[in-house]
């Protein structure tokens, strides 16, 4: 593990967030699932678009305890970890940088679980690090405005970055297709995938 001085929060452009906001303009109210931690300013930001926001705070469950391992599957029991109420449907899922911290099999399991709460057109927004190292712990993201995110690092530690490739991600996220992808100057790729229904999507790869 590489040590560095505790980084100050930094504000970065977010073209993916802009694209997501454009999708939501005039949608007349939507339901949002935020897998990140509660941030008052984020709740306020989304309030202009949506009727409800569900904060799952998956960050607080990381690293995942062994008790959530599913003996029958190569990924954790996401129902046990997230426990979304049955029957709810979301229009937007905010996964932030979570997918960097899971192997692709776990990503596939997570997406498979989330699919139960999607409807055709549900958008999932996430960030992939395309760097040699990435923050050791998941970063919290505070929305500054429609095109800027404030990265709030939890610790100074760094770890090897898995650098998930687009094709592998697209394969793990079956039934979703890419709506937008943006490579930012800071080595982050922002993705917006959209749920297409039960048929596996072709993607753009």
């Amino acid at each position: 593990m590489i040590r560095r001085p505790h980084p100050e929060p930094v504000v970065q452009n977010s073209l993916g967030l802009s694209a997501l906001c454009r999708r939501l303009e005039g949608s007349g109210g939507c339901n949002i699932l935020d897998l990140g931690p509660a941030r008052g300013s984020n709740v306020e930001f989304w309030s202009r678009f949506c009727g409800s926001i569900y904060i799952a705070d998956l960050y607080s469950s990381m690293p995942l305890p062994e008790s959530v391992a599913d003996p029958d599957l190569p990924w954790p029991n996401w129902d046990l970890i997230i426990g979304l109420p049955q029957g709810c449907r979301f229009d937007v899922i905010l996964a932030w940088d979570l997918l960097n911290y899971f192997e692709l099999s776990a990503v596939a399991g997570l997406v498979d679980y989330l699919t139960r709460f999607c409807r055709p057109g549900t958008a999932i927004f996430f960030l992939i690090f395309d760097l040699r190292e990435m923050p050791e712990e998941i970063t919290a993201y505070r929305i500054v405005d429609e095109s800027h995110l404030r990265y709030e690092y939890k610790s100074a530690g760094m770890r090897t970055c898995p650098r998930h490739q687009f094709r592998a991600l697209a394969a793990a996220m079956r039934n979703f297709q890419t709506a937008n992808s943006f490579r930012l100057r800071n080595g982050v790729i922002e993705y917006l995938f959209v749920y297409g229904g039960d048929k596996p999507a072709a993607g753009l790869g």
Partner: protein
Amino acid sequence: MWKKSEPETLNPPSVPAPQAQPAPAPRGSAPPIREHAVIGPTISIKGDLTGEEDLLIEGRVDGKIELKRHCVTVGKNGRIKADIYGRIITVEGTVEGNLYGEEQMIVRQSGTVHGNIVAPRVALEDGSNFKGSIDMSPKEKTIAPGAQDKPFMQNKAP
């Protein structure tokens, strides 16, 4: 559509700290008017609470708390396993249950809420711990005793 929530440094009208005791009334005069009721840190209640005055809870409550026209404050020592109905609800302690605020809902930095919030205005202070849904939709959809058992956003299923 949601209304804009209050700034995170918001300091709304809340129940004052319990140590602020009124001065003793002179003999023969009317008893002092208490501004709020207090459930102290050593008190544990199992059952429903209703009333017509503001309430500060520093103890434990397991049941339903219904003071729709008044402020309910869960103090730092408060441990609640209950649905809370209030005009303005402020959480500084821990709540497991759904919160229904007629006007406003505030989760302070020290507060932990595992449950759903329904209120026209919601403020989550940085450092607060919250897991659940937030619904700031119009009032007629919100305060509905008994509705807390319904799944989150059930009405929008395809």
